[in-house]
């Protein structure tokens, strides 16, 4: 019995959720009996004396065979009042139907322009199909409709805010150009979602092939209260986000390179470097072709590859000592999506990290520093005494040991047993034998589990940290090691003399300095041999060069102003290929690749699972939630008017 009741409640709940946006308001229907009660209570009958009620009684008996219902039937006003309440409650519960067309609605069009939209669909790029769909929606706009246009690839761009200016929308749609980047819908979705919070009746339409790499990252908990989704039907969830998915494209004919990377020989061995190429076959047919590896237009190797549909094949090439240049892998295959058939790596020797230690050459600490820095092949180490130090921006890393200059140089700075003159930073007194109490394990300087907690320190400065600084290693009364980076310039201090502690004998000491080296901008730069399309290039200027000229893969050129104090980012990397950056005489080349398996799988999806909603691709015209509360409210008003009219001429009654 209990189970039956539960089943009944569940099915009623489902039915209500499928028809109303706010079913809890239906509880207000319980007001109807109250109205009836009030009606009977408020009814004040005028007493009229008549000669005899004999005939009236007989007449009444004739009519009122079943009195209460008859009475209700005759009480038109009461019925109308109940009808008004019914309509108002239904309007509050926001019933909706899925309907075509979009009159009076606000639409947010999210148009995919990722790499896969370049896919050739019977001679036309897939992008054209998407534009066609978008234009069709704009053409179907009705009076009062407004459309917001957002295009998205790895980032979202708002092309038109909510507007009813059709020519502008059409022009903006025509202007959308596909990029070579991944599809990330997250930003675009948040744009639409935030608009949905402030705009009534917003309906979002995603026009895409559905090959989106970050669908899992859209989690509703990021934007507002989580509804009890697990118990809701798919329709209910879809309804919550009122969104339609318009699928474009049909081609699946593609194979592409999805991984192209360099493997350095492991430490201590003398083997060659290796290059890994992973080929993915997204087609329904098996693929048999060749991969050509070339270096600066010289073919190094050609290898055959066979891949089953939907499978990957891995090719490993041994790379001879070839020095600096561009390594290119090419899949010798014609398909509908050529963008992923080629990939590049920019090979360059690891950049030298120019390091200056400002310290008395005879100090014990200087010895430890040289011991830990000299063996690293990346480090170009210079040592200078504080007395002969003059400000120089030539160094990537400057270590001040017991000495702080008046003016701070560029590059990454480390202060040992001294503090730079920065606002709010100072030391009060010394602490004897400070124990190490807490570590900020998340900090880049403590990567690889650097843990100096068993180090003994004779005495340390009692450092007062300003709000913007971040303690890295702390003792009872403050930071022993702190991050005092300002803007893009990395700075840190060690608040004690390393020679007055046993830290240099501890394993954490060389690891810590490895991290300091990795923290420098130069180190970050030299790591990238391949950059995903859409990610910015990091440009580190030469001291005397004000501008860098960047030559894009399509041979167009852009000028970027450099800043000697900090790296500059160049973000227009939507094309794949080789970007050449000229800093005056010196040139640097960056390889920008797509290398994305989701993007290479060009076959369109029939379904989008965004957040907790699952959206089927629309067939035919877009169907969207059309709310009915306006009509109900208008009906309620009409009934009120009718009731008033009847009330004012009660003689008719």
């Amino acid at each position: 019995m209990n189970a039956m009741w539960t089943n009944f409640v569940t099915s009623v709940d489902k039915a209500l959720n499928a028809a109303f946006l706010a079913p809890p308001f239906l509880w207000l229907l319980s007001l109807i009996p109250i109205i009836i009660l009030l009606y009977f209570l408020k009814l004040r009958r005028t007493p009229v004396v008549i000669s005899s009620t004999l005939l009236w009684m007989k007449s009444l008996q004739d009519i009122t065979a079943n009195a209460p219902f008859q009475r209700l039937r005759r009480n038109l006003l009461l019925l109308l009042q109940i009808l008004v309440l019914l309509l108002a409650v239904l309007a509050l519960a926001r019933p909706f139907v899925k309907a075509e067309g979009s009159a009076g609605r606000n639409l947010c069009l999210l148009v995919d322009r990722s790499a896969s939209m370049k896919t050739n669909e019977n001679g036309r790029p897939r992008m054209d199909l998407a534009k066609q769909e978008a234009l069709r929606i704009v053409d179907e706009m009705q009076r009062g409709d407004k459309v917001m246009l957002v295009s998205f690839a790895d980032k979202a761009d708002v092309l038109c805010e909510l507007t009813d200016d059709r020519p502008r929308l059409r022009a903006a749609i025509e202007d959308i150009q596909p990029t070579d980047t991944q599809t990330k819908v997250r930003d675009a979705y948040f744009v639409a979602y935030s608009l949905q919070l402030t705009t009534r009746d917003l309906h979002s339409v995603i026009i895409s092939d559905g090959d989106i790499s970050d669908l899992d990252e859209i989690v509703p908990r990021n934007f507002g209260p989580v509804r009890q989704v697990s118990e809701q039907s798919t329709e209910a969830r879809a309804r919550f986000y009122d969104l339609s998915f318009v699928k474009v494209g049909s081609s699946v004919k593609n194979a592409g390179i999805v991984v192209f990377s360099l493997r350095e020989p492991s430490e201590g061995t003398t083997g060659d470097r290796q290059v890994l190429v992973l080929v993915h076959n997204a087609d329904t047919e098996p693929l048999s072709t060749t991969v050509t590896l070339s270096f600066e237009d010289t073919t190094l190797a050609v290898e055959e590859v066979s891949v089953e549909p939907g499978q990957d094949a891995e090719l490993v090439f041994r790379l001879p000592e070839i020095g600096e240049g561009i390594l290119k892998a090419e899949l010798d295959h014609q398909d509908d999506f050529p963008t992923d058939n080629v990939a590049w790596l920019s090979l360059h020797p690891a950049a030298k990290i120019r390091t200056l230690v400002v310290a008395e050459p005879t100090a014990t600490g200087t010895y430890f520093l040289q011991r830990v820095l000299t063996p690293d092949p990346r480090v170009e180490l210079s040592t200078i005494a504080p007395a002969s130090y003059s400000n120089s921006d030539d160094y990537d890393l400057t270590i001040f040991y017991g000495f702080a200059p008046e003016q701070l140089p560029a590059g990454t700075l480390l202060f040992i047993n001294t503090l730079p003159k920065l606002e709010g930073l100072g030391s009060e007194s010394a602490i004897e034998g400070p124990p190490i109490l807490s570590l900020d394990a998340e900090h880049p300087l403590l990567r690889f589990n650097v843990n100096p907690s068993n180090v003994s320190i004779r005495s340390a400065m009692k450092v007062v940290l300003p709000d913007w600084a971040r303690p890295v290693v702390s003792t009872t009364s403050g930071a022993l090691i702190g991050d005092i980076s300002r803007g893009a310039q990395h700075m840190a201090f060690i608040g004690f003399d390393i020679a007055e502690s046993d830290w240099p004998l501890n394993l954490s000491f060389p690891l810590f300095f490895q991290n300091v080296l990795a923290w420098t901008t130069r180190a970050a730069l030299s790591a990238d041999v391949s950059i995903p399309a859409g990610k910015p290039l990091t440009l580190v200027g030469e001291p005397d060069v004000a501008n860098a000229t960047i030559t894009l893969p399509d041979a167009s050129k852009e000028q970027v102003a450099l800043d000697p104090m900090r790296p500059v980012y160049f973000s227009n990397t939507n094309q794949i290929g080789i970007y050449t950056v000229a800093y005056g005489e010196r040139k640097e080349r960056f390889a920008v690749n797509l290398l994305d398996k989701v993007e290479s799988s060009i076959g369109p999806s029939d379904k989008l699972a965004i957040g907790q909603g699952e959206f089927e691709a629309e067939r035919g015209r877009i169907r969207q939630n059309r709310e009915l509360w306006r009509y109900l409210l208008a009906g309620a008003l009409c009934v009120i008017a009718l009731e008033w009219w009847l009330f004012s001429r009660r003689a008719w009654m």
Partner: protein
Amino acid sequence: MSENVTAETLLDAEFLRKLERLAISARKVQLGLAKGERKSKRKGSSVEFADYRDYVQGDDLRHVDWNIYGRLNALYLKLFQESEDLTVHLLIDASRSMAYGTPSKIGFATRLAAAIGYVGLIGYDRVSAEAFSQSGTSRLIPCRGKAKARLLLSFLASITPEGATHLAQSTHTYVLRNRAKGVAVLFSDLMDPDGFEPCLRKLQQSGSDCYVVHVLSPDEIDPPIVGDLRLVDSETGEFIEISSSPMLLKRYKDNLTGFCEAVRKFCLARGIGYIFAPSDTSFERLTLEVMRRGGLFR
């Protein structure tokens, strides 16, 4: 009584003159109590010859027709039509419900009764009147002659409606008390919870020549009822609650028509004269035309 009726205002002089041309007609020949202006079933000593019969011993010799004895040598008695008086019973329902309506039913009924009574008095008929009400009956002892007209009018003007109707009971009592047969006229709205039939039956059983004047007010015939009302019975104080609607009104009128028709048929079947008298009908017309046509006047 709702209207301020006095003996003087009950009937005006002009109307009285018109009434003097009328006489009450009894459809049956009744046995009267005293010698009067009416033919009697008895043969007696009036001037109107009726028949002869053989002389039997003991007959009054003064009535022997000596002319026939001279010719036929046989004794015949000459018979004359006896003339007697007629008793007009005016029975007025004075229950509370009769006070209702504009003009009031009791006012209308008493004026009618006055007219009939006056015609009776000037016709040298015995006229008796009685008002039925809950507190008991008030009555006018039978009287004769135009000189008693003032007495009759004063009595009628003094009738005040009160209490509930018990028509059958009142009629029964009246019939038992007044054995004299004649013409009985009942003025009532016949709105008796026990039904009008027992009352009319009693009336008929009295042997008199019976008439019913059914008095209804215009408010009863076409009630001006609007809205949600509590209808209070003027006699019993009972009430019913109605919300007026076209359907209810139609049903009421149908019932009223049915009620009147039932009374009319009941009367027709029993030889009772039925006169339907809405209280707003022209009094003169009703008296001079309708009643004459109904057979009450000649």
